[in-house]
């Protein structure tokens, strides 16, 4: 009755993810025997060569872990250094940090939504093929992405590895009129984003919901970027500095990245969907109303993460406009100080979820030890579990369809494999 008794699937190079990974799946007697997400990017040893560098160099160095979310690395390291110095930056500098992060969320989410993930839903290999059949959505998507990049470049000097953020603030802050010059574009992109959300709602989504533990930041009366407590929907509620007491990383033999898990409870979920479910009440009315219109107040289906990302793009544009409209150029672009003999913790919401940094700084301001835990290594275990359950449910599908959907299930998390590899006490195995 079953023509494939034992099936093994291997996708050696996962496409449309950032970095290099592979998937391995074994089915026998119609049962899923083994699922592995392999990460085989070679390690780059960031935590090693950060030792001996000055505290002020960490933002530019760690940015090079990931070209897709450099702001996240800059922000987590900067906040860790300020935490070590017991300084908290308020006012317009704080607002500008949120603004540049808005730009990164838009740019990173739009890349994923329109160029990497959407082709899966409609059966295309890439955005170029997709653009031939559906030119408007791809062009609008590229415009949205471009405006995100323009926010980053305006504040940061360029899109990839922007140069303007520093411990204490920015090297240079924009004048009011410089920021205001992009209001029209942001408004146009926001309107296109609303059209896109309505369009995306009509896609066909697989029924797939699980009872996840969502983890993200939560802060007083705002949607989180740089600050907050680390909370979950299942009772976790800790300070950033308690992260390593609650989350452990495990060796897995087949991957160059560690799997993180919660003590006592196991796999957990970080990223847009977690952030959204934990902070829906913090969204502005306007964004909430669009979310309600498409029936997305709480989302447990990772295949719908494409909608959550689109709503977050809308939020980022709305927040960017709020910041720009009340912006007053600060007198000083940064607060000058030296970090000495201290430990600092930072955790911010990267586009793909919480990104944790910890540094020990000696009396000369030099880094003695660094620890970095990126979102993708936190999501690895959840991704494997999703694959397991998804395959179990759809085991009757022909091989090529099953593989396609599994790849899509991996892309639900927008995994950034470049990020996930560089840390971690894992065994590297090469075949």
């Amino acid at each position, binding site marked *: 009755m079953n023509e494939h008794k034992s099936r093994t699937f291997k996708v050696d190079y996962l496409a449309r993810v950032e970095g290099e990974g592979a998937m391995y799946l074994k089915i026998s007697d119609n049962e899923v025997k083994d699922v592995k997400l392999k990460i085989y990017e070679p390690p*780059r040893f960031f935590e090693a*060569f950060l030792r001996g560098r000055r505290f002020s160099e960490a933002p530019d160095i760690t940015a*090079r872990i990931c*070209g897709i979310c450099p702001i996240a690395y800059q922000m987590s390291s900067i906040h860790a250094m300020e935490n070590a110095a017991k300084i908290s930056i308020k006012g317009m500098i704080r607002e500008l940090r949120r603004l540049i992060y808005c730009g990164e969320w838009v740019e990173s989410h739009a890349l994923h939504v329109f160029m990497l993930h959407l082709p899966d839903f409609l059966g295309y290999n890439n955005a170029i093929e997709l653009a031939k059949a559906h030119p408007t959505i791809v062009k609008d998507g590229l415009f949205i992405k471009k405006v995100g990049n323009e926010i980053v470049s305006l504040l940061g000097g360029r899109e*990839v590895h922007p*140069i303007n953020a520093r411990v204490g603030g920015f090297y240079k802050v924009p004048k009011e009129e410089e920021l205001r010059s992009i209001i029209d574009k942001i408004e146009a992109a926001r309107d296109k984003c609303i059209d896109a959300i309505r369009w995306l709602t009509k896609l066909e989504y697989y029924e797939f919901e699980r009872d996840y533990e969502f983890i993200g930041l939560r802060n007083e009366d705002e949607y989180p970027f740089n600050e907050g407590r680390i909370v979950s929907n299942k009772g976790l509620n800790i300070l950033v500095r308690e992260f390593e007491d609650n989350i452990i990383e495990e060796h897995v033999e087949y991957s160059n990245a560690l799997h993180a898990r919660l003590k006592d409870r196991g796999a957990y979920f970080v990223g847009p969907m977690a952030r959204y479910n934990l902070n829906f009440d913090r969204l502005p009315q306007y964004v909430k109303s669009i979310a309600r219109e498409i029936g997305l107040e709480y989302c447990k289906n990772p295949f719908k993460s494409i909608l959550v990302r689109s709503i977050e793009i809308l939020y980022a544009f709305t927040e960017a406009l709020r910041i720009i409209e009340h912006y007053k150029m600060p007198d000083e672009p940064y607060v000058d100080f030296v970090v000495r003999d201290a430990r600092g913790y930072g955790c911010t919401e990267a586009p793909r979820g919480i990104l944790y940094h910890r540094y020990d700084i000696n009396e000369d301001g030099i880094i003695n030890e660094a620890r970095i835990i990126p979102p993708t290594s936190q999501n690895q275990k959840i991704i494997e579990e999703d694959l397991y359950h998804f395959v179990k449910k759809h085991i009757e599908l022909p091989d090529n369809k099953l593989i396609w959907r599994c790849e899509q299930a991996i892309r639900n998390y927008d995994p950034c494999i470049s990020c996930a590899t560089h840390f971690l*006490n894992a065994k590297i195995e090469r075949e």
Partner: protein
Amino acid sequence: MRVPKLAVWKFASCDGCQLSLLDLEDEFLSLADRVNIAYFLEASKAVIKGPYHISLVEGSITTEDDIKRIKAIRKASKYLVAIGACATSGGIQALRNFSNIKEFISIVYARPEYIKTLDHSTPISDHVNVDLELQGCPVSKYQLLEVISSFLNNKKPNIHSYSVCMECKRKGNVCILVSNNIPCLGPVTNAGCNAICPSYNRGCYSCFGPHESPNIKSLSNKFRDIGMDDSSIIRSFRMFNSYSKSFRVIDNERA
């Protein structure tokens, strides 16, 4: 000519340089009309077999397997361009080249005996013949576009080697090194970024790496004059292009 096939390859890197292609939002779709994107895993799961007319290579060589792979890529490519600091000088991960790799591994990994990595991170040109090197961490997306379009039009790309100082002059920036004593690597660094850092009141940190004939000694002396100690001077050269031929010689004595 038939539509040329373009391939994008990745070695040890952050993906930022290849991302620059996708950051060409206004040009990407029309570019895709003119070239056949035959291998670009970050953007497409469709893979077309070689040979390729133009290969863009991102990342540095850090494993035995990388060496085999880059040789195969060279064979399959007519015109091979190394893009970014990783591919042209070994990148930030080449900082291992100045340390003991065993120590490095044991800092990051609990089971050092399992780690298989080369003790040096090296540029593509250490292993195969490279037709063009495009510097930058990341590369400038406009330079990248210039390289591809000139290839399509059978022209020499308009990419020059001179210092960031020239770009500052063209923009009318006041020199931050002379006027404000801010350490700036602009004098030894290849142009291409349009002097971003000095335009934002900070010193250039040489993400583009050295230009053709940098005078490292004289800049180090200047740095010492404005009060930097030796270890800070060395560190300033030990960033994203530390293993470039001009910068790697920096050591305690030379600085």
